[in-house]
């Protein structure tokens, strides 16, 4: 994925990442968190805007800084970094709204060829997990890193 990305910062375990989105709305600090879930070695990918005054994180904010592609590429690069430290994990992602989940699906679809080279991809339907298929609706996505 040869798209511009923002510089990522993280603490030493690569669980929390931060980057700065730059655009017409100024500099917006974004946080990515790989959250431990109720399943062993399954982490949920969550991200949102950081309020610099309070330190609070808002995952419903729509900052729309005209850099959606760059933000998506940066989040995907954080996933690669995460798997370097946690190679045996799964990463799950679901949007805070249906339209955000659809946005994730669009992102996976756009880079599908590259992604299946590096990840086993699954989609969550009402019936459970199945191998990710293009043009199919899912409520969440699961990835396991391939190491060839």
């Amino acid at each position, binding site marked *: 994925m040869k798209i511009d990305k923002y510089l990522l910062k*993280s603490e030493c375990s690569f669980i929390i990442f931060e980057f700065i989105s730059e655009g017409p709305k100024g500099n917006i600090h974004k946080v990515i968190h790989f959250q431990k879930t109720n399943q062993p070695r399954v982490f949920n990918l*969550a991200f949102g805007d950081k309020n610099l005054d309070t330190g609070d994180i808002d995952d419903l904010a729509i900052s729309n800084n005209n850099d959606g592609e760059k933000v998506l590429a940066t989040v995907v690069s954080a996933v690669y970094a995460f798997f370097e430290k946690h190679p045996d994990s799964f990463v799950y992602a679901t949007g805070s709204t249906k339209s955000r989940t659809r946005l994730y699906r669009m992102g996976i679809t756009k880079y599908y060829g590259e992604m299946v080279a590096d990840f086993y991809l699954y989609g969550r339907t009402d019936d459970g997990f199945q191998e990710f298929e293009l043009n199919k609706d899912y409520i969440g996505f699961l990835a396991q890193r391939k190491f060839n």
Partner: protein
Amino acid sequence: MKSVEPLKNSKVPIVQIDPSLEKYRNETLFPKKLAKANEHLKTAKLPDRKGK
């Protein structure tokens, strides 16, 4: 001299370590998102983990 090509072409980014982010590691930053994910994960069998 070693080539920098593998580094340039790697999808694994260069990550700057920022110890100030440690304070968030044990916090639940997105509780509703985590609750939603846990619900999805709890009610479905995970795919078998594939070997390396």
